[in-house]
């Protein structure tokens, strides 16, 4: 289900203009939507809510990642977007240890 939502939002991102607006759909909660639906149904709403707490921290890390990716793509091209993933791990781990552990 996660893959289907990802493709759906990717398609929306390819048809809307301009580019910055299309970029919004690259950060759509596609995987979260599918995963939370399955989790709420199979393990209960309580577990899904705990997931959303982690997701909130992950979203902040995602915003930082995007900012880093802008700079990294400018300097490194293709590899920049991959190298910048390190910033997501650093921020996500920091927020988890500070607030969610």
């Amino acid at each position, binding site marked *: 289900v996660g893959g289907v939502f990802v493709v759906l939002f990717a398609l929306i991102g390819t048809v809307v203009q301009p580019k910055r607006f*299309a970029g919004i759909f*690259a950060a759509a909660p596609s*995987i979260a939507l599918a995963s939370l*639906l399955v989790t709420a149904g199979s393990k209960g*709403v309580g577990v899904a809510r705990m997931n959303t707490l982690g*997701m909130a921290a992950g979203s902040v*890390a995602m915003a930082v990642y*995007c900012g880093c990716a802008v700079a990294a*793509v400018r300097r490194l091209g293709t590899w920049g*977007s991959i190298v910048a993933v390190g910033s997501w791990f650093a921020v996500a781990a920091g927020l988890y240890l500070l607030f969610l552990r």
Partner: protein
Amino acid sequence: MSRQQRMGVNLGGVKEAGFRDLLLRFIFGVVVAIAAGLVSLRFGARMGGLFLAFPAILPAGLTLIEQKEGKEAARHDAGGAVIGSAGMLTFAIAAYLLLPALAAPLALALALLVWIAVSVALYLVSRRLVPEGSRKDPS
């Protein structure tokens, strides 16, 4: 006066997307959804939740855009993704608040509406503050 591209829909983009690109994104989506589930089982739901906002699709998407349309387009796409990420934070908050009160599909549908509303509003503000394509444009 700055010249901004109008907001709109170009259905020709679907043809440009290509089956291979979409398949790649589908596979990334499936892998991350499974990884989030496994992390939840092993380390708890909060840590698993982190991966619901993992930039799995973004690196692949940015790479494809950078290769096909250049660094400038990739920069704009990443700038939009910053806005989408802020919207994603509000999705998580809305889902946290709505899940105990409503049926899960309805709660998540409403949280998705919150994501869309917040993201579009932030985009419109960013467009006004920093016109896309202007020299000040940092995205």
